[in-house]
Structure formats: structure tokens, C-alpha cells
């Protein structure tokens, strides 16, 4: 995938995190790669967005959030039939906890903070996914 392909995409993303700092940071990371980004403060807001008909190619999901955490929100979205790429972004140290988060329905799980390398990897995965579906 060329650099031009990476930036010239029509991809949309949802950043779900209760920290305003992390939301702004990850939003900017994704925008730099040409994605159109929305943010949500917690899992419930993310689920509600989908219920209202919104859809996104990529969801960056924090684990620890009030009202509805990342694992619960991921499970809920999968039950609703959401096939977006859902990527956990967490500072969880325990392998057991990360595994439990993956089992909620994540496609990938990264440690905070997200890096440009992580995003390039995700864009390539999204590109592969689009090619398979077409």
C-alpha cells in the first residue's frame, strides 16, 4: 500500500475514550492519515451512535470507561451485527485482562498510546478487509 493510498482513503473512525486528552490525541493521529473521525466519551455513547444509524470503518475502543466499558460496548456492538474493525486501545497490563477484552469481540488490541506504526498497520488491515469484501 503506497503512502498516497494510505492518506487518500474514505475511511471513517470512531474514537471511544473517557479521557479528553486521549480522544484529542487519537483523533489527530487518525486525521493525519486522512480518516474522518468522530469521538465518543464512553461505550454507551458509542453504542447509541450505531443505534441511530451511524457507521464507521474503524472503532478505537478504550477498556476502562464509566457507564459502559469497552468490553461491554464491544459485545453489544457485535450482538447488533456491527462488522466494523474494533480495536482495543488500553493500558491494561495483565495478559488475562487483555485476553478477556479480545474475547469481547475485538479484531486487535494495542497498548496506549497509539503510534503511527499501529495506524499504518490498521489501515493495511482495513484495505485487506475491503478487498476481501469486494
Amino acid at each position: 500500500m503506497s503512502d498516497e493510498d494510505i492518506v487518500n482513503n474514505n475511511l471513517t473512525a470512531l474514537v471511544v475514550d473517557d479521557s479528553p486528552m486521549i480522544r484529542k490525541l487519537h483523533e489527530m493521529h487518525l486525521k493525519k492519515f486522512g480518516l474522518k473521525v468522530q469521538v465518543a466519551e464512553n461505550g454507551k455513547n458509542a453504542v447509541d451512535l450505531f443505534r441511530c444509524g451511524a457507521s464507521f470503518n474503524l472503532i478505537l475502543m478504550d477498556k476502562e470507561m464509566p457507564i459502559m466499558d469497552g468490553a461491554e460496548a464491544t459485545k453489544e456492538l457485535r450482538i447488533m451485527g456491527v462488522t466494523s474493525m474494533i480495536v482495543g486501545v488500553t493500558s491494561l497490563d495483565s495478559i488475562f485482562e487483555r485476553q478477556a477484552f479480545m474475547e469481547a469481540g475485538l479484531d486487535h488490541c494495542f497498548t496506549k498510546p497509539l503510534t503511527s506504526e499501529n495506524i499504518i498497520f490498521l489501515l493495511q488491515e482495513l484495505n485487506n478487509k475491503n478487498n476481501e469484501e469486494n
Partner: protein
Amino acid sequence: MDRNRLQHQVACMRRSLFDQGYLDEPFIQLEELQDDANPNFVQEIVTLFYTDSARLIQNIEHALNSRPIDFDKLDDYMHQFKGSSSSIGAKKVTNECTVFREYCSAENAEGCIRSFQQVKQEYAILRRKLEVYLQMVRQAAVSRTA
């Protein structure tokens, strides 16, 4: 002050923040996100970090003063603080958060109280250094456009 000298001072201070272990890689990624369209991005993120930190420090202090101490809640707050510190590359602060969490999981109240003092100290030092550094960066930027 002479423009070149200012820029040289900025570069030296930046290098020492990394060499002395106050900052690491995520801060570089943060700087790389700043551009002409978002010229104050680093400052905006750092300001949000200060706001997050103030809230979490207050919550942790309150939790440490409660009897009995709720170690789960304490760990939760410190986990959040560690997450935001590591996200901007605040290396020493992040390391002290890790030490605190070890005392927390051992339910060692005295250890938590002691290590929290270290967390606050490292945070205060970093904040002072970042404020000076970002002030110098702004001055250098103004001198470039003058």
C-alpha cells in the same frame, strides 16, 4: 534574544528532557502531530494532561485519606493516571505510577502513601520543566516570524 541562540537553547533543553528520562517516545509522536494547521497541538494536549492529572491526584488523595482504604478504587485511579502519563511520554511519572500500583495490589497503605509522594513530586518536576520548555518554544516561534 538572538534567534539562533533561542533555537539552540530550545534544542538543548529538549535533548536534556529526553536524556534525563523525563520524556520518551510518545512525546516525539505528539510533536510530530503538530503542524501549521495545528500549531499549538502539543500545548493543547499537555494542558489536557494537567487537567486530567489534577483531577486524578485529588481523587487519589481523597481515596488515601478514607478509612478503610478502598484499594480497588485507588488502583483504578492510578491506572488512569498511568495511562495518561504514558500517552504523552511522561516516563518518570509513569514509572512511579507502576511502583504505586505494586503497593496497591499488595494492599500496603504505607507504601502507597510514600510512593504517591514520589508520583506527585515527579509530576510537579515534569510540569515545571514542560512549562519552561514550551514557553521557550513559543518564544522561538515568535522570533522566527518577527
